[in-house]
């Protein structure tokens, strides 16, 4: 295809512009990586070094002396539990709200959606007190169970399932399938895209959120990655080198997964944009 010469200049300009912007946006990642190989003292030095002068890997090896591996595992457990249980309750309820008629259905749905407008902050102190009294503070159950009935998740699943053909479900009923079989043999497989998107939304929350696990997890070996890493920046003994090494290890799996399944990530993270 031939381009007009002025168009060529324009397109060159736009490309240069975006390359520049992308470089700016990459700086924090680059700096994280480089700093993770520097001794903590060298991170804030008077001379700027684009590469570590004497690269060291002790930031990584010393992470093993903290509870870092445990934090990693805790985050994985949080993500897995939240995804599994959250998808379970949201998809079951989403199906009912999408495809059944029952008494009070609309009012219940409205209450759930309205509750979504109140941020989690209103529940934090009560939840802390409740979990403490129920003796599940500082446990995985205390971390996961309060999160799973996620109104946004329910809403998202319902919107998707409304689109499933009634004829398909009725045909299965004629063939003698029970409602439960219809749910897990037909509805769940069809809903894979929305479930994948939600799974990503939930796991990113579990992996990245600070405030919730900060309140529930009270001892060092129970911290999630976000909480654990936040302690490395402490007032008395900040360990930036280690913090950067830990950050690299925490970010890496998410970026790799994202590059492999971008579509699901984007639809999961933009889930809030579905209009009601």
């Amino acid at each position: 295809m031939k381009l007009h010469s002025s168009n060529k200049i324009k397109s060159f300009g736009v490309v240069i512009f975006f390359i520049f912007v992308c470089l700016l946006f990459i700086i924090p990642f680059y700096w994280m990586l480089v700093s993770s190989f520097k001794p903590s003292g060298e991170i804030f030095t008077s001379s700027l070094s684009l590469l570590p002068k004497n690269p060291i890997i002790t930031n990584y090896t010393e992470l093993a002396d903290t509870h870092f591996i445990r934090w990693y595992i805790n985050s994985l457990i949080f993500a897995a539990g939240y995804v599994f249980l959250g998808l379970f309750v949201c998809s079951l309820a989403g199906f009912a709200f999408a495809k059944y008629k029952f008494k009070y259905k609309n009012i219940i749905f409205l209450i759930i959606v309205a509750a979504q407008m109140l941020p989690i902050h209103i529940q934090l102190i009560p939840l802390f007190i409740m979990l403490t009294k129920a003796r599940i503070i500082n446990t995985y159950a205390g971390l996961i169970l309060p999160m799973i009935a996620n109104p946004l998740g329910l809403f998202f699943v319902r919107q998707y399932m409304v689109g499933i053909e009634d004829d398909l479900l009725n045909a299965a009923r004629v063939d003698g399938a029970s409602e439960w079989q219809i749910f897990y043999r037909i509805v769940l497989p069809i809903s894979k895209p929305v479930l994948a998107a939600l799974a990503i939304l939930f796991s990113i929350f579990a992996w990245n959120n600070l405030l919730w696990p900060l309140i529930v997890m009270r001892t060092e070996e129970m911290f999630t990655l976000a909480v654990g890493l936040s302690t490395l920046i402490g007032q008395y003994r900040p360990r930036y080198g280690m913090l950067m090494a830990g950050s690299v290890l925490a970010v890496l799996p998410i970026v790799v997964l994202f590059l492999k399944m971008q579509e699901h990530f984007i639809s999961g993270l933009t889930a809030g944009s579905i209009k009601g």
Partner: protein
Amino acid sequence: MIKKVFYNKKIVPWLFIAPFLIFFTIFKVYPILYSAFLSLHEMKGLSGKEFVGLKNYIDLIKDSDFLKAVWNNTKYMIGTMITLIPIPLIFAVLLDSKHCKGKNIYKTILFIPTLTSLVIAAAVFKILLYKGETGIVNLLIGFIGIPPQKWLINPLLTIPSVVLIATWRWTGMNLIYFTTGLTGISKELYESASIDGANMLQRFYYITVPLLKPIIIFVATLNLIGGYKLFTEVYMLWNGGASPGKSALTLAIMMYRTAFSYFEMGYASTIGFVMALIILVLSLLQLKLTGFFKEN
């Protein structure tokens, strides 16, 4: 008998919603009511509740920290409005033009910060915003002739520092919203406008902006609501949120510290409750602006 109930078509939908409703009631509905209840009590630690009526609310309104926090949240919100609407919008328009090659690569790169934990983003920016001339941000502004700034120390620059992090982290997300919106605008509209002699700016102002209005409003309300939830960046940048002169004290930080540094659970609940009310009002405003009530 149990089997009959389990498969009864009238009961099955209730069984389907039961797990959700149970968890929802215990962990959402009850805590909301409990929060309202606690906010009427004075409570030190976990025991010894004393009913004090509206005292906490009256104290809160008189509390200079509270007013400061609301104002800081508002400043942050305005900051994100200034950066996180025009920048991604312009990027989206440029990406949408036929002159642009390699769109998906740019979109992917700009989206990756969104995946990064705020804990990590704030930690890295704590290094990038280093006060000396070797802080990368100071180095970069040096190129355009601005002297090095004490980003995290000067109270005037603390909120801008947090806005900078938000801009880095969220541009890619808003870019997705805007590019999705742009694909819905027909190219013929632009072509016929060009034929009528409209230049690029005119086309942007008279076609793109009006047609993207619903998405611009949506993004604006995300900023609006997000603005009042600010916590993690401040917690990280100033070791638990002790920003210079409380210049970056936010409602969430105030609530957290009241509960877990001073153990005043009643007062903390009041802060949480008021914070939720502010966000609720803003969300309702969003629904009104996006025409939610009209459509139904």
